[in-house]
């Protein structure tokens, strides 16, 4: 009975570092968090997606709040902006880009002005003076007021109307009235009718902490001085100022200038902490195939009405990338894009002490590689999860529990159930058939038929090797075990004369391809070469082909399987996500052991593509689909006219492997296998059998318990009159509730297990 050493302690305080650069490079491949192209083109960084979303929903109040974040005077900006966002809109590639500016204008007109309690807000202590008028001065006044600095504006104009009028001639009457009202609501002091001379400015600014002026004032009073356009600051004069070549330019200038004012007021270097200002580049990927509304909503009057604006906003497809989330049930389950999830998983591997909350997520990925194919940037989540698993194993922080059953199953395949023999009559062979551990567990008849067929039709001898390729320990991240498995298989292959391996399963083929110098061929390729044997036939109904994730990137294999299906007379229906884009059935990467729920969602994802029966070429896929009640057949069942029938439970899977081995030993190699016979009769209630499958308890575990109680008599009687016994097997304690029947047999009613050890304690 094979065993795996449980990790010793939770008190292991070491981590293996992963290069930060490598991680960052990986994470940077995911463009999920990149802004949409419209926002990227906007130097003021309007969140266009959210803005249009609110407007489309008719929530103009929220839309206006978003817009006011970038525009203290929304109508001035909306009516005058050059709108680089519109030119960047992706819909231009298919038709009309979204009329973002016109929607902004409507939102500014019809949206409810938010009351940001102007006068009653607590003000900062440092004071600011602003000299001049015009767009830049207007916007800057708005920005400084928003930052809550007490502000005094000195302008030549006689009153507020004329101040607002300066450079805003494009506003219509209604818009002007609205913005005037807005300006009046702001907590700004004005001194009108000022002669803006150099002496005036110098004298007045002395009373303030920071001084600013319009571009016109700056150019007129200090023609020699220069202003740094990144900071909107003249260092020598300690004067914040601007340029204004249009509404957007004035607005962006005012934003930068306001930040400089803020830094100066805090006695900081104006270069300090400015972040990424202005328009940026975006590499966001967007699937445009679902965009339908490609023409602009027409305008009845001079601008959009509320309804028109909402309709126009509704044309926006809210550009975002979620190619991988659309196709992968695992990512969808955790609702995280790979960039973020990878970062969290890497961080998890670096936790020295305490909880590792990402263990389960990193073990739930099926390592299937689908994301790498569907992601426009080739993000390789499988590599992230696989390396993270190895990393955790290397520091002895990986729990054994989620993978132990599968690992023990592998050891069973390569010990008790292992078989390696040359074809009878041969010492060494040209070929060896390697059907894979799942095929022998699920469809032993089919394996036998295939082997006998290969033996008769291939020259040079065909050996047989029943075992596991090592994918299980590879997926679990147990690299030392994987090395041992590889060495073991290499030794066994050498004994057979290093034959060409005929893989029966694409995942085995992929795994075995890692062995140096090993010659490999898929059984499907040989069958096409030899011609199909007699007795095979396709399905009566049209069927869907499910491509195995083991064959991702292997177009030849995908093609060969389809050719076989065609020759068998199968009619194949097209499904989305086939070929290289195929999702995993939920078995891959041991997902089904670490997270049943996610694995079930993966199976569901595969099955939702079609209502037809499924044909697959990996036995694990066949099994998982059949368990969901779908008619599901492996291509080799069709080739050999066999039917593996209902899916076996976990104990039957072991039994099938062992009995196939014994049957072949007896029939082909004329050896009498050593079979363990129970010297008592053991039966199970249906409930017990179902419970054992669900709780991953094998009949072998139950037998160990009953053997024990028969030897030492240790058991108790429960309240319900049934007997209960227990045994420690490996890293778990198994409990069996049973009764002794009149005929001396044992009837098992219930079974459960736990991993903790329990002992009696003294004192």
């Amino acid at each position, binding site marked *: 009975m094979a065993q795996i050493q449980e990790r010793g302690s939770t008190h292991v305080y070491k981590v293996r570092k992963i290069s930060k650069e490598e991680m960052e490079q990986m994470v940077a491949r995911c463009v999920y968090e990149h802004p949409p192209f419209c926002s990227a083109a906007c130097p003021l960084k309007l969140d266009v997606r959210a803005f249009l979303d609110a407007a489309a929903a008719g929530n103009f109040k929220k839309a206006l709040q978003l817009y006011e974040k970038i525009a203290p005077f929304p109508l001035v900006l909306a009516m005058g902006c050059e709108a680089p966002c519109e030119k960047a809109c992706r819909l231009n590639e298919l038709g009309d880009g979204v009329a973002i500016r016109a929607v902004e204008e409507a939102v500014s007109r019809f949206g409810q002005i938010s009351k940001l309690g102007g006068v009653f807000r607590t003000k900062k202590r440092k004071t600011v003076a602003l000299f001049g008028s015009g767009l830049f001065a207007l916007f800057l006044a708005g920005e400084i007021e928003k930052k809550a600095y007490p502000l005094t504006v000195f302008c030549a104009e006689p009153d507020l109307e004329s101040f607002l009028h300066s450079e805003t001639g494009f506003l219509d009457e209604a818009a002007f009235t609205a913005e005037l009202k807005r300006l009046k609501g702001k907590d700004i002091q004005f001194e009108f009718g000022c002669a803006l001379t150099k002496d005036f400015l110098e004298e007045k600014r002395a009373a303030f902490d920071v001084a600013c002026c319009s571009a016109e004032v700056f150019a007129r009073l200090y023609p020699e001085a220069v202003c740094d356009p990144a900071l909107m600051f003249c260092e020598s004069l300690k004067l914040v100022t601007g340029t204004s070549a249009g509404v957007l330019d004035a607005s962006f200038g005012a934003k930068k200038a306001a930040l400089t004012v803020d830094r100066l007021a805090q006695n900081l270097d104006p270069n300090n902490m400015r972040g990424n200002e202005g328009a940026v580049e975006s590499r966001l990927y967007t699937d445009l195939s679902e965009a339908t509304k490609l023409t602009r909503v027409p305008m009845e009057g001079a601008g959009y009405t509320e309804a028109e604006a909402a309709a126009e906003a509704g044309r926006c497809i809210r550009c975002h990338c979620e190619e991988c989330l659309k196709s992968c049930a695992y990512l969808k389950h955790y609702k995280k894009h790979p960039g973020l999830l990878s970062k969290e998983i890497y961080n998890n591997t670096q936790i020295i002490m305490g909880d590792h909350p990402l263990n389960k997520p990193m073990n739930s990925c099926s390592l299937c590689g689908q994301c790498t194919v569907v992601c426009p940037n080739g993000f390789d989540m499988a590599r992230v999860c696989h390396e993270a698993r190895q990393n955790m194993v290397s520091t002895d922080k990986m729990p054994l529990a989620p993978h132990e059953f599968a690992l023990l199953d592998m050891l069973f395949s390569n010990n008790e159930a292992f078989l390696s023999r040359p074809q009878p009559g041969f010492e060494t062979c040209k070929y060896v058939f390697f059907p894979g551990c799942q095929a022998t567990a699920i469809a032993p008849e089919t394996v036998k038929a295939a082997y006998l067929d290969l033996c008769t039709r291939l020259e040079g001898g065909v050996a047989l090797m029943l075992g596991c390729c090592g994918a299980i320990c590879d997926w679990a991240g147990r690299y030392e075990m994987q090395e041992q498995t590889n060495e073991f298989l290499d030794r066994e292959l050498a004994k057979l004369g290093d034959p060409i391996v005929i893989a029966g399963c694409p995942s085995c083929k992929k795994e075995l391809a890692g062995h140096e110098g090993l010659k490999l061929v898929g059984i499907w390729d040989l069958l096409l070469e030899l011609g199909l044997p007699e007795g095979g036939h396709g399905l009566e109904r049209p069927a869907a082909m499910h491509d195995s994730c083991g064959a991702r990137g292997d177009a030849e294999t995908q093609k060969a399987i389809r050719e076989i299906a065609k020759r068998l007379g199968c009619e194949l229906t097209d499904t989305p996500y086939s070929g290289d884009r195929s999702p995993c059935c939920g078995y891959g990467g041991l997902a089904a052991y670490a997270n049943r729920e996610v694995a079930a969602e993966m199976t569901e994802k595969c099955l939702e593509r079609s209502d037809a029966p499924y044909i697959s070429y990996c036995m694990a896929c066949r099994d998982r689909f059949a368990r969901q009640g779908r008619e599901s057949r492996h291509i080799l069942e069709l080739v050999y006219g066999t039917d593996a029938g209902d899916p076996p439970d976990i104990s039957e899977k072991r039994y099938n492997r062992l009995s196939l081995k014994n049957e072949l030993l007896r029939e082909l190699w004329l050896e009498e296998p050593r079979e363990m016979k129970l010297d008592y009769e053991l039966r199970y209630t249906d409930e017990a059998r179902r419970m054992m499958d669900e709780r991953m308890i094998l009949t072998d575990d139950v037998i160990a318990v009953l053997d024990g109680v028969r030897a030492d008599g240790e058991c108790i009687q429960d309240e319900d009159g049934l*007997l209960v016994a227990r045994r420690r097997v490996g890293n778990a304690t198994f409990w069996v509730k049973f009764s002794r029947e009149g005929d001396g047999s044992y009837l098992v009613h219930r079974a459960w297990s736990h991993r*903790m050890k329990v002992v009696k304690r003294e004192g």
Partner: protein
Amino acid sequence: MAEKNYYTIDPQGKLQCMKCGVPLVKGKAKFMYLDNGFPVELPVCPVCGFVYVPEALALGKVASVERALEDK
């Protein structure tokens, strides 16, 4: 200072040790996992020391503590 017990089950004479022919009693026991120990009180045979872990306890409390420790 008395040790804190994480869990207590009193068999109230309803369980019987078949080997020793005596009822199980509430007794001191300890769960151990990955280098961590938890004192509990469970049905124990006063003669042979058989400690009983009922199904509900194994699948409930014990399983959740196991999960928590595994991710440490």
